């Protein structure tokens, strides 16, 4: 079976990725929702031009934060 330069590129990347410890990868999976949670809690949510009042924006923020928190718990525990 022949290989091409595409196979060699793939093999190089594959070896590099295989060298990353799985425990570190697990933390990356936790970090994604965590970073998003921080963004959700700090970002300006809702545009007054769309008729989104502060209390509605607050509910959006709470809902989004709850969904992300669940992800952090899931990936943190499993």
């Amino acid at each position, binding site marked *: 079976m022949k290989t091409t330069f595409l196979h060699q590129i793939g093999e190089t990347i594959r070896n590099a990725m295989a060298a990353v410890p*799985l425990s570190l990868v697990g933390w990356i999976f936790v970090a994604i929702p965590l970073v998003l949670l921080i963004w959700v809690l700090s970002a300006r949510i809702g545009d007054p031009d769309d008729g989104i009042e502060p209390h509605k924006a607050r509910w959006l923020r709470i*809902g989004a934060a709850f*969904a992300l928190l669940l992800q952090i718990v*899931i990936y943190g525990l499993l």
Partner: protein
Amino acid sequence: MSTTLTTLDFVLLGLYLAGTLGLGLWIGRSVRTGEDFFLGGRRLPWWAIGMSLVATDIGGPDIIGVGGAAYSHGMAVANFEWIGCVPAMIVGALVFIPFFWRTGVTTIPEYLERRFDVRVRTALSLCWQIFMACNLGVMLLASARMMSELFGWGETTCILVTALLVGTYTIVGGLAAVVYTDMIQCSVMIVGCLGVLVLGLIELGGPAEFWSRLEPAQKALVLPVDTDTPFPWTGILFGLALILSPAYWIGNQAIVQRALGAKSAFQAQAAYVWGAMLKSLIPVIIVGPGLVAVLLYPDLKQGDHAFPQLVAVLLPTGLRGIFLAAFLAALMSSVDSYLNSASTLVAYDIYKRFIAPDADSRAMLRVGRRVTAGLVVWAIVCALLMARLDQGIYTIFQTLMSFFQGPALAVLIAGTLWKRATGTGALVGFLGGLMTTVGQFLLNNQAVCRYLGLKPLFQIEDPFLYYSIWGFLVSCCLLVAVSLATRREPDEKTALTVF
């Protein structure tokens, strides 16, 4: 493993089907214009849209396919519902969805014409139409296999009955009928699958016993690069979480169309957030039974047999009818959504754009209904043809999507976030990315590799997640290079179409 239904099962199933059909037809009475048909008159509430999003995403292929993948590969398949949905839904809710809603477009390709040009719109729209048309066949086939497995009914009969039932209320009621019936279907689906899970756990001696008997590899969400499953962490993180998922939740017409039909931008956002919360619970009810089946029936020939086996053996009389209703609910909620969205793409991106630009709202309603009817026929034919393939149903679906999702996301993100992106750059980037993914698929195909004497390009089975990564990267590179080499779009064009 064929089993029989009792009168009680048939009564419950009949009640569900009659209720769904009745609701769809009743909603259809108030559909008078194209906007009513395609966008529910832009009057849809967040709670209905949120449940519809989940029901649309969890189709028949998911119940059979995800349960089957959990049986074969363990819990890693739950990533598709967790990190493969929730982060993208939240970003979509807070950034992209209100933006699209404010533009007042009916289809995502329509937005791309406003931002770029008609070539980009048509290329994207055609890809979505082809995908949706094939996907309709995949979904119908999933249902047919399930019903054939369980009850010994003929696959062809199952395909015909399901298609005609869903087609009827979708043709009459349009998006509003789809969304409100989805809401009921979502509830039925959750109850039915939860019932299977609970009975399975009881059979195993409870959740603690179930969890303790699973192998560590079956419980792992993060799998190594050299795993023999299709879910190595590199594919899940880079292919699914960062590319396929945002492409699906931000750029899939069948998904975004619901949000475009919301009463307000806030309602559209709230629908996505509500959907994200529900999504967190979905793996419990569809991945869980697959894992239960591993412990109860470890010798099944195919993972796709896991759910049918559980239903045939565990469920008592009466509950089989409820589960079958749940399965049909999952199937119908996805088929109706793809029917409605595919007809929207054809009606707006082909008919109104090229054939009859002056078509009024009533004409669009007529076209929408006729196209939907045509798609029902097409879906039936497609399902019958696909029945000859032996590959996992879920894999067919994911592979089809991975061909153009990465390139489509590159175009959409560049369009919304980068003023310097040009129409030519977007088109070249999209087509280049598409050729990359199809080329990779061919270079990984056993028959092609044997003919060329080449080693397959990827080392894992079904590397659809990797196709999307490379498609996205190649698209981005080409898009940037060609955009910088071509004349920038006028400011008046980008003023309202870029953040």
